């Protein structure tokens, strides 16, 4: 059982190694990297490649660790007790299972994605230490210990908005997805747009890397933005010549809104292009 990338996901060698280490040792893999470098995609692709179901748990700033395990709906039990319903006698009826519980009790090994763990409260990772380490937890309401039937393959992504506690990090493998170099980027685009004209791709990549290297940008365009942009270029059927920077009148690449997402960046970009034009 080895992950070697997939038809629509290009994984570098060190990433493959990280995934395989996590799968073999059944430890969680923590993935960090610039936004838009395919952190979340990875879990989906691994699940597809290994033929395992994928469970996703998306973290928000208000998410509590307990919600991933289970939630006890005390209010509806109180209400039912007033209505004299029969099911009120069994507390199990009021416990809704969270994503981790479902992953633990699944009959086959699953891939579990804990997405953007850094969005949650600072204590969130600490509350999951035992769950990730031993893959079990205790349910107070029903007085039972839930133990994973098969240790799930866990992927955790982070955008680095918060530092994660050391104790948590020690339990994970860690991989930092670097921004792909030109060759890898070419492969990625090839995988997503197999029929793309070579000329258009070459020009587009050039413009893209030029923009990325522009100093002072607040948010550099990333892989997913490049893919969106190329999609637009293809949809609008823009000829490769339009992207050539030799054309003085059309120095601003078409549809650049897909690449720059911040009005200050767009402003800066236009200013630089204007300066470049004047200096000619």
């Amino acid at each position, binding site marked *: 059982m080895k992950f070697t990338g997939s038809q629509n996901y290009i994984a570098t*060698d*060190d990433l493959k*190694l*990280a995934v*395989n*280490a996590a799968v*073999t*040792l059944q*430890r969680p893999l*923590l993935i*960090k990297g610039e936004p838009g470098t395919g952190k979340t995609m990875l879990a989906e692709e691994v699940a597809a490649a290994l033929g395992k179901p994928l469970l996703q748990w998306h973290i928000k700033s*208000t998410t509590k660790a307990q919600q991933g395990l289970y939630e006890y709906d*005390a*209010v509806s039990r*109180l*209400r039912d*007790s*007033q209505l004299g319903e029969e099911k009120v006698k069994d507390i199990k009826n009021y416990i809704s299972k969270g994503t981790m519980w479902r992953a633990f009790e699944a009959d086959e090994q699953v891939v579990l994605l804990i997405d953007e763990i850094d969005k949650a409260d*600072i204590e969130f990772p600490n509350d999951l230490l035992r769950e990730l380490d031993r893959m079990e937890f205790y349910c107070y309401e029903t007085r039972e210990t839930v133990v994973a039937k098969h240790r799930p393959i866990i992927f955790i992504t982070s955008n*680095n*908005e*918060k*530092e*994660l506690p*050391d104790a948590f*990090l*020690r*339990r*994970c*493998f*860690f*991989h*930092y997805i*670097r921004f792909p170099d030109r060759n890898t980027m070419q492969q990625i685009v090839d995988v997503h747009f197999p029929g793309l004209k070579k000329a258009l791709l070459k020009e587009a990549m050039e413009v893209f890397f030029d923009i990325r290297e522009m100093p002072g940008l*607040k948010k550099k365009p990333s892989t997913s933005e490049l893919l969106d942009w190329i999609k637009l270029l293809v949809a609008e059927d823009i000829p490769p010549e339009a992207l050539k920077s030799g054309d003085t009148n059309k120095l601003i690449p078409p549809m650049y809104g897909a690449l720059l997402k911040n009005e200050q960046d767009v402003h800066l970009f236009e200013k630089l292009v204007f300066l470049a034009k004047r200096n000619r």
Partner: protein
Amino acid sequence: MLIDFFLSLKQHGLPVSVKEYLMLCEAMEKGVIHGSVDDFYHLSRICLVKDEANFDRFDRAFAAYFKGVESLAAVLPADIPEEWLKKLAERLLTEEEKAQVEALGGWDKLMETLKQRLEEQKGRHQGGSKWIGTAGTSPFGAYGYNPEGIRIGQEGSRNRSAVKVWDRREFRDYDDNVELGIRNIQLALRRLRKFAREGAEEELDMDGTIRSTANNAGYLELKLVPERHNKVKVLLFLDIGGSMDDYVHRCEELFSACKTEFKHLEYFYFHNFIYESIWRNNRLRHSEKFSTFDVLHKYGNDYKLIIVGDATMSPYEILQPGGSVEHWNDETGIIWLKRLTDLYRRAIWINPTPEAHWPWTQSIKMVRELMEDRMFPMTVKGLGEGMKALR
């Protein structure tokens, strides 16, 4: 052997733990990798390093530890001479030789000599203690032992097509203390978070609901509480113009990070030092002034004060009435700073000049004393410490 490797990482200041080391051993035992040094590099990094800020340190530690081993592997097949000798040279230096090298002189002298030698030198050079090349004791070149050495492209060996991964040191930028992006600043500022429940009640208060329901003889009575918010209040004073021009970019980043991070943020500008008036809009600084007294009265002592400035000026600007470079100030800067720090007990000064330069400027020393030593450099680490002092 791996224990030595582990210990050498620890010596290089990497926060590695036994648990992680055991994880690495387990991975080796289960055969995740097959005998390639590159794979081992990646695997050990996955297991042992949990922060990209430490990648560069790891690369250096790894290179230091595996210098000998790697070259052996490259040599074994056939052509021995050059590779072998090259790496051998750097392992054969004695401790004394290393000490001698240290005695060559300071940084300026190094740069000067480098220039000279570059002009003199023709062709490739190996060993020896004068010419630029590899593995020598000369301060110039790579793989050498001169601690003050200047690194000139430490590249992979000639027989191999690729440069060694860890020698590329691609993660140099992520090392802390150096880079200070908006994201990093935000991270540092976040330590100041203080959550409190204020405002509209919209979250279900479970305990309260159960209690009031019980009091209500079992009839359901819902209780709600307000959601949690970050309620830290920050007063930010920014030095602007003059000697601060060099740091405009970094201050901008700090400012934009502050603005998104704190809901209650009030900011004002001053020039060189704080006197009786400050301003909010730099373009209208002469027409739209705020009295510092008004600011002191308006914002209560639950605000935390952050002053950003290089504190580099003539001491008179702090000590003397009328010392300001721009106008006549009736009261000295000391008095004004004291008024501020008396009211805002939680106050820090963030200084963008490098910490190593501080002792050489008298005014920095003075301000530091006035701030009771709560002056911090504008680095990720400095900000982190500053936020701790503010809590």
